[in-house]
């Protein structure tokens, strides 16, 4: 086994947890997020599909370890990665009466009161722990859902990969699975309803079924919990009613296929994605490594490329391999299947390569060790390049008036196309007209360090 390099993570540092196909790596940086130290590999040889930090009641890191020989276990560390253990019982187990055995843990999420954690697993099920991961129980309400028999595995397996506990109502949780779609409970997990109205299932005879969609990731901001954003297997969507219905927001993206999605820590209208060419070619379009960001909740999307390769970059970013930290300006991070990890210390305006040559990256999560509001963020390289980078811009961009005439043109183009009855042309016209103002506005916003 390889030697594991220890990493001492200190207060006032950013901890970046990177789960790969061959083990867990930890990185630590100053709040400028421009000097990274590496630790690992921990659990070498084992794929890591999910990681989390829970600092309520003491530091605890979690990693789901998918050992190819000895099965999946949840490992935890109370000393910031120096040592890892199973805890008291460690293993999430299906009860005997289900006749199922755990294949993989896809998501670990701290929630609500101190000590509560949720785990999303394969085969699609939700587990809950009320003692910081020491003991786990199956959430029977979802497990016994009448739709279960019709949920089908996607290419990655039949997995429950997204868990979004409501920030103030412990009884409300949104989950997403591939395939199956989005489900929501409002009674603490006893009953669940499919919430997929408006979300397309390209691969089904009925394109808008009640459930069965292949949802890849859903995000929401704690300050506006009824607004959700969704990256689908083909499709980008937004809901403003907690998932009751969804609207298409794929405006000006090179492809609406992709896996990952992250929401800005301080702005519920700012969302990040990495579009991929197609389900038959799951790589970045045109060989360009581009993160896309919307500043207005999906009306426009802009490419973020400063510091990212724009030639021969046929990369794949998996569903949990994009994340943000809690600092201001926000850090944005992603990892690729080719083993590269990039970090942006300024909300995506510029990017630095943290590491190249890791095993395939499957999950990244970033945590500031301390109170983010008190972090002392130095003016680093990116900040120097863009002097206003640390200045926070208002939630809504002020570029709207200048876009008005272009928007009008877009609407006219839509009208014209609609008359012809060409639905496809309508969307293309919208995108074409929307592209230029979005680009102009993007330049201004970038200059403000958004």
């Amino acid at each position, binding site marked *: 086994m390889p030697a594991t390099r220890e990493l001492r993570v200190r207060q006032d540092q950013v901890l970046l947890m990177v789960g790969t196909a061959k083990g867990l790596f930890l990185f630590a940086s100053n709040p400028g997020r421009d000097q990274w130290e590496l630790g690992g590999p921990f659990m070498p040889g084992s794929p890591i599909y999910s990681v989390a930090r829970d600092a309520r009641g003491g530091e605890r890191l979690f990693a789901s370890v998918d050992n*190819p020989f*000895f*099965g999946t276990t949840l490992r935890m560390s109370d000393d910031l990665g120096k040592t890892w253990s199973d805890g008291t*019982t*460690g293993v999430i187990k299906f009860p005997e009466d289900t006749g199922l*055995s755990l294949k993989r843990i896809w998501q670990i999420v701290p929630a609500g009161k101190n000590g509560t954690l949720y785990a999303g697993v394969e085969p699609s099920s939700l587990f809950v722990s009320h003692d910081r991961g020491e003991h786990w129980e199956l959430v029977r309400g979802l497990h016994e859902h009448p739709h279960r028999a019709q949920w089908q595995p996607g290419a990655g397996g039949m997995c429950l990969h997204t868990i979004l506990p409501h920030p103030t109502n412990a009884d409300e949780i949104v989950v997403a699975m591939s395939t199956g779609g989005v489900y929501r409970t409002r009674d603490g997990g006893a009953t669940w309803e499919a919430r997929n109205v408006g979300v397309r299932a390209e691969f089904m005879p009925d394109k808008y079924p009640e459930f069965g969609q292949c949802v890849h990731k859903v995000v929401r901001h704690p300050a506006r919990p009824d607004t959700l954003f969704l990256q689908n297997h083909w499709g980008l969507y937004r809901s403003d009613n907690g998932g009751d219905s969804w609207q298409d927001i794929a405006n000006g993206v090179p492809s609406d296929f992709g896996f990952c999605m992250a929401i800005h820590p301080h702005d519920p209208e700012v969302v990040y994605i990495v579009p991929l060419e197609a389900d038959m070619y799951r790589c970045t379009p045109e060989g360009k490594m581009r993160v896309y960001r919307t500043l207005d909740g999906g009306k426009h999307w802009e490419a973020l490329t400063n510091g990212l390769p724009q030639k021969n970059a046929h990369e794949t970013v998996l569903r949990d391999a994009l994340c943000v930290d809690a600092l201001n300006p926000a850090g944005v991070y992603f990892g690729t299947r080719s083993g590269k990890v990039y970090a942006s210390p300024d909300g995506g305006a510029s990017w630095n390569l943290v590491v190249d040559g890791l095993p395939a990256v499957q999950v990244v999560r970033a945590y500031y060790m301390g109170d983010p509001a008190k972090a002392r963020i130095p003016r680093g390289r990116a900040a120097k390049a863009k002097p206003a980078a640390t200045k926070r811009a208002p939630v809504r961009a002020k570029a709207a008036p200048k876009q008005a005439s272009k928007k009008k043109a877009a609407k006219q183009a839509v009208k014209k196309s609609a008359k012809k009855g060409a639905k496809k042309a309508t969307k293309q016209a919208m995108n074409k007209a929307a592209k230029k103002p979005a680009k102009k506005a993007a330049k201004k916003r970038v200059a403000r360090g958004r």
Partner: protein
Amino acid sequence: MAIRVRIPAPLRELTQGRVWLTLDMPAGTVDDVLAELGRACPAVRDRVLTETGEVRPHVQLFVGDESIRFTGGLATAVPDGAEVSIIPAVSGG
């Protein structure tokens, strides 16, 4: 009245580095040995068997030099004083 279980290197962190676990039990079957192993060290047992009681696909169990795949699976007899080895299969990438 004892049966010894050999622990593979990747699982020795669960046995405080011990290569051999000695189980104080009479002769029985591999199933009995794993049940006793579950009492002595549940974390090791859980890495050998799934929740449904099947040996994980990439784990091999030997009684002496014989793989239990060819001697009756979990019902294979384990005589008093025998050695049972847990061995990760040669597979993966």
